């Protein structure tokens, strides 16, 4: 069960081209391509004729032709050609999906078209702001999307999983402030007077002690924005080295997710060596998360149905986010 009346990241802009690309989002098969004018199109990736996917087919102008018997569809999903006959069957159409392309991501609306509100696409401007430089990755995680939400809302795991990059024991020793405002849940941790995390310390050219902070904001159901950084002891966060980690989490099915990741920083913007170091270091972080969450998925799939998580205070953000997701899912069922 998925929250469908929502925007999810479907792809990077660079992945949508004149070559049809397949994605499965919330168990819905989708084909993505661009028109000759460059506009992104998303259609259900299943020909109504006999169920063959459209993505192995070819583009004919702005239309896509099924590779099996040549049924052809325009960008709205209307069938415009059936090669074997002149009459186009009434039921020969495919569903089209609203898209918004912004800052390098292509967002798809998987629910009722009339509810698609472009103003609800989250703010991701750091990816295209020249004052910031961004490192990106994308991963397939063989786990349910909720585990990635939980992972980002409870960053105490950094102390144990990411010891060589962003982790330190001081993380779990500091409490959090969880804020719930409507559907948005944030978990904020301030760690005063600590050393910078190993992964950024060289790029930040830091020595000594700083105030470190991270605040994960969950915009359900598929986007988490992490405001992170270090600043001088007792100084405002805005003065510091700032990081925005943009996490587009898109369910594939009940046990698989796409993870679209962008790490934007406002320091060392022209230092290419730093960017290169971060490309490698952040890939390590994501591989460590992937490994942990895939093991967790295995653990959960073998866990008896009536056994629940034993949450602790540090899980306040996790628990609140789950409640919001439960509420949104219930509202959509009505």
């Amino acid at each position, binding site marked *: 069960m998925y929250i469908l009346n929502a925007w999810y990241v479907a792809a990077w802009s660079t992945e949508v081209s004149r070559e049809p690309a397949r994605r499965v989002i919330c168990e819905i098969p989708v084909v993505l391509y661009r028109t000759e004018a460059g506009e992104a199109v998303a259609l259900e990736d299943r020909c109504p004729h006999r169920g063959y996917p459209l993505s192995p087919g070819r583009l004919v102008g702005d239309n896509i032709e099924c590779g099996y018997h040549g049924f052809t569809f325009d960008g709205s999903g209307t069938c415009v050609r059936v090669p074997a006959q002149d009459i186009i069957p009434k039921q020969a159409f495919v569903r089209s999906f609203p898209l918004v392309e912004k800052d390098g991501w292509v967002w798809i609306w998987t629910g009722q078209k009339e509810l698609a509100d472009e103003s609800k696409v989250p703010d991701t401007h750091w990816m295209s702001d020249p004052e910031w430089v961004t490192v990106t990755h994308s991963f397939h995680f063989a786990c349910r999307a909720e585990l990635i939400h939980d992972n980002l809302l409870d960053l105490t795991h950094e102390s144990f999983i990411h010891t060589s990059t962003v982790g330190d024991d001081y993380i779990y020793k500091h409490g959090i402030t969880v804020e*719930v405002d409507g559907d948005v849940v944030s978990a904020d941790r301030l760690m005063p007077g600590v050393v910078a995390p190993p992964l950024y310390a060289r790029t930040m050219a830091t020595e000594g002690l700083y105030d470190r902070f991270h605040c994960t904001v969950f915009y359900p159901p598929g986007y988490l924005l992490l405001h992170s950084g270090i600043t001088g002891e007792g100084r405002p966060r805005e003065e510091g080295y700032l990081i925005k980690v943009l996490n587009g989490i898109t369910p594939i099915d009940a046990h698989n997710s796409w993870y679209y990741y962008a790490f934007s920083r406002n320091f060392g913007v022209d230092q290419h060596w730093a960017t290169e170091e971060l490309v490698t270091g952040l890939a390590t972080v994501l591989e460590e998360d992937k490994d942990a969450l895939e093991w967790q998925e295995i653990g959960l799939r073998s866990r008896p149905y009536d056994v629940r998580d034993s949450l602790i205070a540090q899980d306040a953000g996790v628990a*609140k986010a789950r409640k919001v997701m439960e509420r949104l899912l219930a509202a959509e069922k009505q």
Partner: protein
Amino acid sequence: MQLILRQPAARDAGDGSTGVVVAASPDTFGREQWQWDVRICESEAGFDVAVAHNVESIEVVEESIDVSASFEATREVAELWLAVVVKKPVIHGQFRLEAGDVAVWEGDDPVRIRVQAVEDDARLQLVRIRRRDGKAARWVP
């Protein structure tokens, strides 16, 4: 740990009673026994606060606080405090809390609580929760 619960995040109690639940323990999908919940109901004076709790295990002290300028107090680590903003906005740390918002504090951070009024006549309902067995009251029992 600190929880800031904005009034729109409140939910129906689901039992036909008036008011909405703004905070409760347990507030998880766990197997813990119900301990307490705090409900608010909009009134002419702002918000009325109602606390229900398991009297065998939990002790509750309620206090109405007039935040004419500021309010300061030190919480015992074993106590869990809830401050419901009954009337007029207040500032706590980096947070502006509007009427109907709730702050929950538990554990060893923060223990020093300081709330400042934004306007005259700001009022809080402070709910102090303590376990009868002497152990620390937590958001998850």
